[in-house]
């Protein structure tokens, strides 16, 4: 065994740690250029709607409970608030869904009755029921992390689909398709 022979025999795998390091450095660099998923998705999709019962958010509509989603047909559960600006943007789309015969049940997050009433007067009221969630308790039960968010609840009472953010015109058909799937 001579001193000059050993290094040349080991050479190929001696580069391995450096190659590994370069790979991870490259991976980190690449990941930095990728857009990060901004929202946390609910992992409740596919699970039954948790039990809840919320008082009315204002005088004009009854409150909302999980039992209101039982029976017959899929429905939309819309998480919104009068203080939420994108909720104004999605109001026409909710109206469009309502016009197509979709039942929409609302949950107003951290809201006051007078603000809810004013918002609905100004932007329309597509809801059959609106529950008041003053401490985001039901929102947390649903795995929702912001307003607005819309859940498709199947005819069997399971959560079928989550739409994060405001519903834009191009999302209406998508939600309609998810509702049909949830029959």
């Amino acid at each position, binding site marked *: 065994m001579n001193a000059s022979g050993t290094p040349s025999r080991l050479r190929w795998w001696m580069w391995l740690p450096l190659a590994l390091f370069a790979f991870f450095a490259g991976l980190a660099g690449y990941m930095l250029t990728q857009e990060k998923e901004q929202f946390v998705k609910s992992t409740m999709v596919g699970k039954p709607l948790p039990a809840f019962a919320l008082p009315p958010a204002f005088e004009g509509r009854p409150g909302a409970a999980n039992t209101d989603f039982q029976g017959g047909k899929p429905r939309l559960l819309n998480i919104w608030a009068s203080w939420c600006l994108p909720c104004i943007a999605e109001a026409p789309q909710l109206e469009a869904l309502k016009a197509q015969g979709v039942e929409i049940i609302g949950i107003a997050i951290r809201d006051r009755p007078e603000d809810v009433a004013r918002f609905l007067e100004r932007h329309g009221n597509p809801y059959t029921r609106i529950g008041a969630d003053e*401490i985001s308790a039901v929102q*947390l039960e649903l795995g929702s992390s912001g307003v607005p968010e819309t859940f498709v609840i199947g005819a069997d009472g399971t959560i079928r689909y989550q739409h994060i953010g405001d519903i834009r015109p191009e999302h209406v058909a998508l939600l309609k398709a998810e509702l049909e799937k949830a029959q």
Partner: protein
Amino acid sequence: MIRALAVLLLAMLSLPAAGQDALPPAPYAYTQLEDPALEAKATALMHTLRCLKCQSQSIADSDAPMAGDMRHQVRSRILAGEEPEAVRAWLIERYGDYVSYSPEVSQTTWPLFVVPALLALGALLVLVRRLGRSRADETAAEGDAA
């Protein structure tokens, strides 16, 4: 002109209200539990839960209303006798592992725990073999000298 100014002023006054709710924080958002032992449990847990609105902060560090509502859930559940890990599991069931800062061994994370252990084991093996070999060389050299 004056009317336009008044309208502008009104618009500016009403702006801060938009995008921010007007309700007071949840009861246990900023109020500690009376029992110091329970509060310590709750605080320790809150430091390891991610704020969903401000994702690089824990709910203990955040002033977002939703973080306050999450602190309320944590404190009221601990007060009701739930164990911190049960509260963590309740949140993970809803938001996935991402909500917790405390690393768990799961189907996707097990290599993070196994690979370092394997590397350490490999390094140890190499070290033992090298040391053994150099000792053998030494004794061989000594034998030659004798």
